[in-house]
């Protein structure tokens, strides 16, 4: 367990209280922080995004089912990885869950190691995704500071165009392009055209197409 995963929080959603407790007990035995919920609704009310972790979710529950919760989270743009556990290995359910990008699908009863491995993997994935999201958000924030004209210049700089060409394309003087370019580098804290290109790629890959 790496230190970056220390704050990770494992959510457990199962309507069976005993099983819920046993999962907490199991995950706690290897030091995971856990939060147990008796229903999907309860989980949705309590969930705070932004922390790495994963969701250990019973697929069959009264009220909102596991699959329905998965759909709700996707609709909200949450990337929290989900490990489904089910009492009976229903292939159709598993296929649907995996299509909806479930992280894993475990059939009860399962070996403790299988669950723990799945959780570790899911949390790593979650952490990676969170980091990527964070970088994307930062890049996005930096680029937001540019004026529209600076944005046009930045895009061409990132593509590696010399000032002369940029001036001709935008029908402005080469000197003006030079000023814009300096502002762009200052605002985005980048030192080179390559660095600027990476930043823009993180913010929105489609921009460079």
């Amino acid at each position, binding site marked *: 367990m790496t230190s970056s995963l220390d704050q990770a929080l494992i959510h457990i959603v199962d309507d*069976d209280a*005993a*099983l819920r*407790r*046993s*999962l907490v*007990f*199991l995950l*706690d*035995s*290897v*030091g995971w922080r856990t939060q147990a919920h008796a229903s999907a609704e309860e989980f949705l009310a309590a969930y705070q995004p932004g922390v790495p972790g994963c969701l250990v979710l019973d*697929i*069959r529950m*009264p*009220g*909102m*089912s596991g699959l*329905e919760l998965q759909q709700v989270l996707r609709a909200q743009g949450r990337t929290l990885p989900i490990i489904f*556990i089910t*009492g*009976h290995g*229903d292939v159709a*359910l598993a296929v649907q869950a995996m299509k909806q990008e479930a992280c894993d699908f475990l059939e*009860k*009863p*399962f*070996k*403790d190691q299988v669950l723990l491995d799945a959780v570790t993997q899911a949390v790593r994935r979650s952490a990676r995704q969170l980091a990527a999201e964070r970088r994307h958000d930062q890049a996005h924030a930096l680029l937001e500071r540019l004026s529209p004209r600076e944005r046009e210049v930045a895009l061409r700089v990132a593509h590696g165009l010399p000032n002369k060409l940029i001036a001709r394309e935008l029908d402005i003087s080469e000197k003006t392009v030079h000023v814009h370019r300096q502002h762009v580098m200052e605002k985005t804290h980048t030192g080179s055209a390559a660095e600027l290109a990476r930043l823009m790629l993180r913010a929105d890959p489609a921009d460079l197409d």
Partner: protein
Amino acid sequence: MSTASVRGHPRRALFLAVLAAVLAYFPAAHAAAPVRIGVLAFLGAEVALSTWSPLVAHLEAALPERRFVLVYYDVAGLRQAVQQQALDFVITNGGQYAALESEFGVSRIATLDSPGVPSPSQAIGSAVIARADRRDLNALADLKGKRVAAVGEDAFGGFQVAWREFRRQGVEPENFARLDFVGFPMPRIVTAVARNQADAGIVRACLLEELARDGAIRLADFKVLSPRRVEGFACGLSSGLYPDWPIATLRHTDLRLAKAVATALLSMPASPTGHAWTVPADYRTVHDLFRDLQIGPYAYLRETTLQALARRYWPFLLLFFAALAGWVVHTVRVEQQVHARTAALRDALAQRDAAEAGMRAHQEQFDHLSRLSILGELSGTLAHELNQPLATIANYAQSLVRRLDSGRYTPENLAEASREIAAQAERAGGIVHRIRAFARKRAAVRERRPLADLVREAATLFDGMLPNAPHIGIADRLPPGAQVEADTLQIEQVLLNLLKNAADAMQDLPSDTRVIDVTLEREGRNYQIAVRDHGAGLAPASTQHLFEPFFTTKPDGMGLGLSICKTIVEAHGGRLWAEANAGAPGMTFIFTLPADDLIP
């Protein structure tokens, strides 16, 4: 008995006449209600009107303070009017008069005086006519075995008068080959005789002469049988003569009015046809005739001895015995058929009994089969049910090993895990026990159980039967401690069936609307369990057959579930039925179980 039987032309143009004397008898004080005169009008109101309206004119001239109204009736209608005292005066033939006199006490005040008759007391007679070329027919006795036509049984001159003569000559109507009553008008009878449709006909005397005078027939073509000669009577005649039509008062008729009318009539001059009113005739001869014939007021005199009946009614008796014989034959045949069909029915019943016995014998197998099939459908649930405790146990056990290895444990940890493991093992064992008990073939065992527990157990067993099973909401409105004496497993089976049906009915609904409402309440002497779904409901035609074996609306169903449920519920003294939800789609299945406190 008809107007036509009064001798002379039916039109009786009675002259307007002297009034002065009458006025003196009748003071002006009684000018109120019109005087109603009921008239026998066999030939219809129109003919009667032209016949009798001059009489009204005369009476109104004679008694100007009173208005006179003629009301026309047939025989029955006139009798009824007299009975109801709806009339003040009645004008009818001698025959009906005699009858009304006997029955209602009507009293004649004048008799019609017609021309061409010896006296008003000898005015009406019958002629029995035949074709002149019938040499074989001369006397009335010659008509035995012959075809005779007459107007009607209650016609006076047209039948009853002649009947008396036939009887005197030893002939009864039953002796005729045929007696046809052809109704009015009377000349039909003459036509029937002329065309040989009848051998002889009974008409009122003088009809032939009138028709000949009008040129309708030739008198020489006909003859009168058993002809009589009466001094002063100009027509051919086969019978004695009877009094002419009277006018009579009813019992309630005002005496002074009666006197005034009588006086006016007697003072009325003769009409151009020679008709006038005269002092009332003696109607004893009519009574004699009725007494002879035992009809009208004397019908009670009819012989009732067996011999007399036999003599008179032998053709009917013959017919009767023939009918009796036919009936006996028919009865015997029917009896045979009944025997045959009874045997067939008995066979059918025996077959049905055998089938029913077979059904009963198979009932337990069905029962078992159904349980197994539910068990099969429930296997998903059962796997889940079992997996829960097993997974829990595994989690705890594996965690313990892990913690012991890593040293990450406390006594509290260990105790908690061990307790959970024990509890979950027990839970798993309970499930296994329930399944085995449910699937086992067994004799029914009744035990007292709280109904709510029973229902909750079934709901638990059912819960998760399908992936995404509907939510079951239990509304427990039972009095505290409500118990039933029941075979727990059987009742659970019923509940599972109903829950399964409800879930199936809602398959196509989104999950948040798939809810089964189970309501428990007391209903009189019973507890009532209602399982309500929110599905599409069933066609009314389907609901009729719901509880019949092998009826199903499900493509893969056996159609035994509800049939067995009904059997089970009824064996518990309850009832199972289905209702369409009021004001909402879906069905509610309801069954009752007797309340425990009423079970001895």
